């Protein structure tokens, strides 16, 4: 299943570059698709499967940008980390559909803020972040909602305990 996630993540990077920058006037307010995907997958399936999934999107975004691949790797790094911590913290309690999707949304919202903040600092607009808190909130909410949606779509892929005769 990790390969499936890696392929989805690979597709999410050009989507991020092509769609969000065309649909949203302020790039700071755009939802972060790879982050939403990673958070959703970690919440519904296994968090450890998500680490390899940030490598290819970082490369694709890096070569599509004047910014370095390394900065995209660092910006995406909090996504599996936060998802991993959130899932580990809530897994004993988080069993149902809604609880898992909400965990995905929360993790994605926080990771998206860190992603946007990291790239804003690297891009030289870190000083503007306080006055553009609205845009940060928008990217956070949009990424969180997207993660909830992706988590709902990934729900059939959740690991299930096998019965005696399965």
């Amino acid at each position, binding site marked *: 299943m990790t390969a499936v996630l890696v392929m989805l993540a690979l597709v999410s990077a050009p989507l991020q*570059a092509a769609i969000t920058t065309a*649909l949203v006037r302020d790039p700071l307010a755009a939802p972060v698709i790879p982050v939403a995907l990673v958070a959703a997958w970690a919440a519904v399936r296994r968090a450890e499967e998500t680490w390899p999934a940030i490598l290819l999107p970082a490369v694709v975004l890096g070569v599509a940008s004047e910014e370095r*691949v390394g900065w995209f790797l660092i910006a995406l790094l909090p996504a599996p980390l936060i998802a991993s911590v959130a899932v580990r913290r809530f897994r004993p309690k988080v069993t149902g559909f809604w609880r898992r999707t909400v965990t995905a949304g929360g993790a994605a919202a926080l990771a998206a803020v860190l992603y946007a903040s990291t790239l804003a600092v690297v891009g030289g607009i870190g000083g503007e972040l306080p006055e553009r808190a609205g845009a940060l909130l928008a990217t956070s909410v949009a990424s969180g909602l997207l993660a909830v949606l992706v988590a709902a779509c990934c729900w059939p892929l959740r690991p299930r305990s096998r019965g005696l005769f399965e």
Partner: protein
Amino acid sequence: MTSARSAAWFSGILIGALMLLALSPLPVAGDIEARAGAAVAPAVELVRGAIQPITDVAIHAGQIDQLSAENAALRQELSRVQADLASLREGRIATEQAAALVASLGANAGKTITATVILRDPALGRQSVVLNQGSDAGIEVGQPVLGSGATLLGIVTEVNESRSRVRLITDRESAVAALLQSSRTAGSLVGDGDTLWLDFVSLKTTVAPGDVVLTSALGGLLPPGLLVGRVAKVEAPDQELHQRIEVAPLGDLDRIEQVLVMTGFRPGTHLASDDQREGATGGSE
């Protein structure tokens, strides 16, 4: 066990990222990045092509009111332009006489090709786009890129065989020689990531909102007379030597799809060769 594996992944990726950043100043890193970009570009274009219809619907659905208003404004503008056309015909004769002189200076800027924007820079604070044409189509670093109405959008900064990157004039690292059309005062037009500022214009110069800003041939890096923007705001602080002039770009830099690259222009050169002059008179693709 799981947390140990996660810690290993985290450390590995972080170290890898830091190594990439440390090695990035080396020329070979740029070369590898360019090759990776060339390898990735077809996939990006494929995805972009697949999602284009959805994107178009989503973009234009939110713009119906704006497009209607724009349409009405354009109709009015067309009526005014038709009236102007009659008087301009008279001026054409004089212009043709001057054209020979202009050709010897700027004819090398005449050859153009069209290109499609396939990507916008996803990094925050960066204003650049990637075009689907490269050196195979005659694009070179330093060539100006124009949008609708022949307004300057940016300058080519990187080229490979089939792709090129254009730094938009609003990028923080962009600075072009420009002048105010009304007073012929030259200045440096710099971007701040969102809008444009015309620097080094003396406090004595009269500048008013609405004044047209054109490119200047100073430095030989751009052909003269390309439309860039209009003065939006002028401030003249007492303690400063220069005015603070905000310029609104004429091109819609947020919605660029097709652009024109001036492949006939060679930065730093003024005299056109004969075949370039032919290109200037004959040919845009």
